[in-house]
């Protein structure tokens, strides 16, 4: 709905006459204050990741970074608590990319079939896919776990990825986009001699590039931030993803947590998605607005 309109209106609107002098500074002050509050937890985590354990366990901890940055991050990345964080980062990367890539591929194909063909059972398939919109993995964890265990896919990338790629949101997004592609393009391609798959590759796919990129950003975040599912099916620490692995770093019982390493891991866990979101902000917002429409 909104991003095109927002683009159209370059100059900001309301405020007008009031927006002068003091009022403007006040507005900035509010925004800076808001950003500081929202940012504070991340800042604190960063500070904690650069100081020593004793500095943390004798509160209050400092609010300015210390000199242990390299020590803590090196320890986290290469030894971690149960398993090196580098391993978990790699697992998360595989899972996030696998989910994003898998979802995009199967939804592109199924949306193409639904929009550009008439075939027996089309409406049934359409509604079956539609129904999957209603079933987040959290709701059916136990039986899904049993299925994955039955396939022997515990502690495997397949087990991490496959159950999460079949949601219908991406299919609907592509369907919506394909509907806006003029019919004449497909007809022109037909007259030009393109068979369906040729049309898909030469025309539809390149035309969907922006949508695919936007969706990739959203799905990457979605995959990276998964928690419950990897928690269930990766019992082997070697297969832990970073987001779920952090919880495993907390000791059971009364032992004191290794806060600097845990906080360094938290920072490491948020860096990839933050980079993706901030660097592809435009695409990300577009993907967000489109996929939730």
């Amino acid at each position, binding site marked *: 709905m909104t991003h095109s309109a927002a683009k159209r209106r370059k100059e900001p609107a309301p405020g007008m006459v009031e927006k002068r002098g003091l009022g403007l500074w006040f507005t900035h002050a509010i925004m800076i204050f808001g950003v500081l509050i929202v940012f504070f937890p991340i800042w604190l985590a960063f500070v904690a990741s650069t100081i020593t354990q004793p500095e943390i366990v004798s509160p209050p901890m400092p609010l300015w970074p210390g000199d242990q940055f390299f020590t803590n991050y090196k320890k986290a990345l290469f030894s971690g608590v149960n398993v090196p964080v580098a391993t978990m980062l790699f697992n998360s990367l595989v899972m996030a990319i696998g989910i994003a890539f898998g979802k995009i591929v199967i939804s592109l194909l199924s949306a193409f079939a639904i929009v550009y063909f008439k075939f027996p059972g089309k409406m049934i398939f359409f509604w079956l896919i539609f129904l999957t919109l*209603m079933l987040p993995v959290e709701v059916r964890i136990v039986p899904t776990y049993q299925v994955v265990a039955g396939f022997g896919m515990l502690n495997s990338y397949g087990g991490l990825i496959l159950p999460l790629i079949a949601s219908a949101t991406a299919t609907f997004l592509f369907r919506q986009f394909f509907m806006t592609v003029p019919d004449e393009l497909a007809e022109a391609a037909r007259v030009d001699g393109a068979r369906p798959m040729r049309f898909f590759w030469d025309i539809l796919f390149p035309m969907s590039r922006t949508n695919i990129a936007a969706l990739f950003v959203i799905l990457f975040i979605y995959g990276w931030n998964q928690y419950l599912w990897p928690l269930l099916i990766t019992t082997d620490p070697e297969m832990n993803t970073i987001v779920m692995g952090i919880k495993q770093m907390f000791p059971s019982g009364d032992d004191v947590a290794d806060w600097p390493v845990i906080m360094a891991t938290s920072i490491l866990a948020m860096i990839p998605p933050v980079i993706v979101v901030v660097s592809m902000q435009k695409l990300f917002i577009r993907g967000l607005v489109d996929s939730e429409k």
Partner: protein
Amino acid sequence: MEKRVTFKGWLLPLCLIAPQVIVSAIFFFYPAAQAVWQSLFIPDPFGLSMQWVGLGNFEYLLSDPYYRASFLTTGIFSILVTLVSMIPALFLAVVADRLIKGAGAYRTMLIWPYAVAPAIAGVLWLFMFNTRVGVVSWYLGNLGYDWNHVLNGNEAMGLVVVSSSWGRISYNFLFFFAALQSVPKSVIEAAAIDGARFWKRFWTIVLPLLSPTTFFLLVVNIVYAFFETFGVIHTITAGGPQQSTTILVYKVFSDGFVGQDLGSSAAQSVILLVVVGALTIFQFKFVERRVHY
């Protein structure tokens, strides 16, 4: 809304749609059916056989005070998360919309928390409020307030609400900001000419124009609070103290995987399924209507 169907054949489209249908069948429909089926049985204490109990699991659940309490907890939790994540977001968006320059920079900063996984957000907030090392809890202690979310259910609830809302503020901010940017400038100017001051304009013009976005976000945030906050709760409170933060999704997990009560867990899944279904239909009805605007 049908496309002029332009390609012939039925084998190709069936092949195209097959991956999605197969993945959905294996990881969605089969587990969902299993959930329904298992909800009608209770396993014997040794897990060797299942005993048919019909709707017994449901009857038991609905009369189980813990389950009812979990329903109530979920309700309170989702309402609080929705409010705590939407009101600051709207406020910041309105303020940011008044800026001619710099709004984009603030937006970039405010996006960050969205990229942070709920589970990581849980760890960050847990760190701040940790009863032993937390900075915030230490300062609260200095002010004479003895913070202890490990023992105090209300404080635990407060903490999981704030941690869950934190990342959503970014999300809601993006939507509100985009919606505000697309409010036609002429409408605002007309109101200004009519003599409406900023807050008057906000209440009488801007807020009503934002109502589709607001309503949409309400639904989406409730869905989020229901199903996607597992990571926060698992990392911060693990449902405690005394089940005071055990929301429905968490209970499915703890009864199914920790308590190994498969029948009850399955019955809970089925109930959740109905809840999701209702929310999805509600959301879709709403989306459909929005299309006509």
